């Protein structure tokens, strides 16, 4: 996994609540058996005027000029500013894959859906929860300031605004460690293989029907 330490990037604002995983990547794109290549189809139904299907050449498709990511000022954005309950809906990891493949490295919102939040960490994508008032403020600033950039510093758990204001965020120590080092969680867990085996033996003893 790609490590995440500090990141400075252009911010794009997606001003709607409850953005669900079907909106992030519509289901016709879930038929792929790969992990990559979803970026061009991110927010497909909002981003393009035609109906997208896997394999289409997105460079030739008519773009919806009203959609925020299509506005030239947000081209190359790597930080997505979003509203509450971002990523609700399915457990499909295609949503963080698509966001990461598009080029996003961090997401900022007042809240994220649980499973989606979890899935982000597995893909080097940092979801940052900030208080609703701070997010509101960021929306105002981003919209008022072309070229608005933020600096995210994971070791100190802070987001620095261009005006120098520093916003602190919370993150689990374990997830932070994994993200900073780009660790493979499976490898980490398998270091405890003996403990798992011992647990399994006790579990089998207590509930033998689970192993029948």
């Amino acid at each position, binding site marked *: 996994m790609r490590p995440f330490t500090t990141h400075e990037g252009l911010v794009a604002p997606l001003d709607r*609540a409850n953005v669900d995983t079907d909106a992030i990547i519509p289901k016709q794109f879930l038929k792929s058996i790969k992990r990559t290549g979803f970026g061009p189809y991110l927010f497909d139904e909002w981003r393009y005027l035609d109906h997208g299907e896997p394999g289409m050449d997105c460079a030739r498709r008519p773009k919806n000029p009203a959609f925020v990511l299509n506005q030239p000022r947000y081209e190359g954005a790597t930080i997505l500013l979003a509203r509450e309950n971002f990523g609700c809906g*399915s457990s499909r*990891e295609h949503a963080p894959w698509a966001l990461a493949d598009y080029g996003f490295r961090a997401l900022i919102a007042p809240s994220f859906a*649980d499973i989606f939040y979890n899935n982000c960490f597995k893909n080097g994508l940092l979801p940052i929860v900030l208080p609703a008032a701070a997010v509101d403020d960021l929306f105002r600033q981003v919209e008022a300031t072309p070229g608005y950039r933020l600096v995210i510093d994971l070791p100190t758990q802070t987001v620095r605004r261009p005006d120098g204001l520093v916003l602190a965020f919370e993150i689990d120590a374990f997830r932070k460690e994994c993200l900073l080092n780009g660790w493979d969680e499976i490898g980490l867990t398998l270091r405890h293989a003996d403990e*798992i085996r011992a647990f399994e033996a006790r579990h089998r003893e207590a*509930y033998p029907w689970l192993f029948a």
Partner: protein
Amino acid sequence: MPKTLYDKLWDSHVVRTEADGTALIYIDRHLVHEVTSPQAFEGLRLAGRKPWRATSIVATADHNTPTDHWERGIDDPISREQVETLDANIRQFGALAYYPFRDPRQGIVHVIGPENGATLPGMTVVCGDSHTSTHGAFACLAHGIGTSEVEHVLATQCLLQKKSKNMLIRLEGVASPGVYAKDLILAVIGRIGTAGGTGYAIEFAGEAISALSMEGRMTVCNMAIEAGARAGMVAVDDKTIEYLRDKPFAPKGELWERALAYWRTLVSDADAHFDALVSLDASTIKPQVTWGTSPEMVTDIEGVVPDPSSFKDPVKREGAMRALAYMGLAPGTRIVDISIDQVFIGSCTNSRIEDLRAAAAVVKGRKKAASVKRVLVVPGSGQVKRQAEAEGLHRIFLEAGFEWREPGCSMCLAMNADRLEPGERCASTSNRNFEGRQGAGGRTHLVSPAMAAAAAIAGHFVDVREFVG
């Protein structure tokens, strides 16, 4: 210390805990389907790893499979590749059971687990699908996981998790005839919102939950995720046990007795602590219909489409405006005046035998409205289909002009050929009314199977209590 059901399930599966509270949880049952597993098996292969315990795996193909003309196979080459990839992965790595496309026991992953007794009380159950919460009806700790986690569980039999908080939702009183499990859970979501359960494991209890069949409890737990909770659950009682008796993978003989003694303990202790309590009076709940593009945008059949300006919260107001524009609805429209183009009876929320019986009871001797283009009835599994046919339910549907299909996810998410055309409006028994969920531009109203059946006959939403009263 007194424990909640969730505390008990959690405690009995912790392998180890990190200093920050992240725990390694042992997984008893791993349900696998074709959409979220290919990248996980691929990862396993690339790392040269093997499944830790292949006999924990129960797999099926359901999301992509067609629901008619099975003799023709799968037309869409991309869907076919995904289904064949699952076939090959199970062949290579093994499983306790695999119900591939066209197998008589194939079906929606959340329907086949319980009906085969592969979901048992006290288990941890995971699947790369958010509606895994369904299995919580059997006092399991069951939740959806992403593909990286599918790979993690395959390789280690464990999942990294932080414990959730406990929420108790009590549904007191008795629901009136014509009000079903689906109405109860939609009313709950209407009350607490789609993020109301975020960070919690929800236990559903109270008289109205006890009165539900196992099928009804599965419907309720299924949509716990739509209330923001990863897991929903119901304590063990006699119904749980009767349902599981003699199921293929349920323990038998002496093991059954031992299991029973343990299962009986899978209830929250009398004075267990819950971090949040919600209480609803089920006797006041009326048949529910969603009007928007989020399950919390719901009202009852006597209601009207709300005026977005009535929402104080600007984000909610904006959301309602957008939803009404997408849904093509004007504020103040009476729900009973909304006419529909299609009806979908199916999905892991409402495709079990009891759901089909409830729909058939409304349909019997009646005909689909001429204005309704298509009514799809999609049983949840091959077993449900055969049971329904043995009871003659399929004839009731066919005589009414409905279509009787092969099992699968179908128009719940429209990954196969079953979908809405842009602008079409559907009464659907599924769980998500998101934009484009049932086809690009399609408009979904979530309802119970009986309400969907009644709408098919009337051509618009009607109060099903008039049919069953």
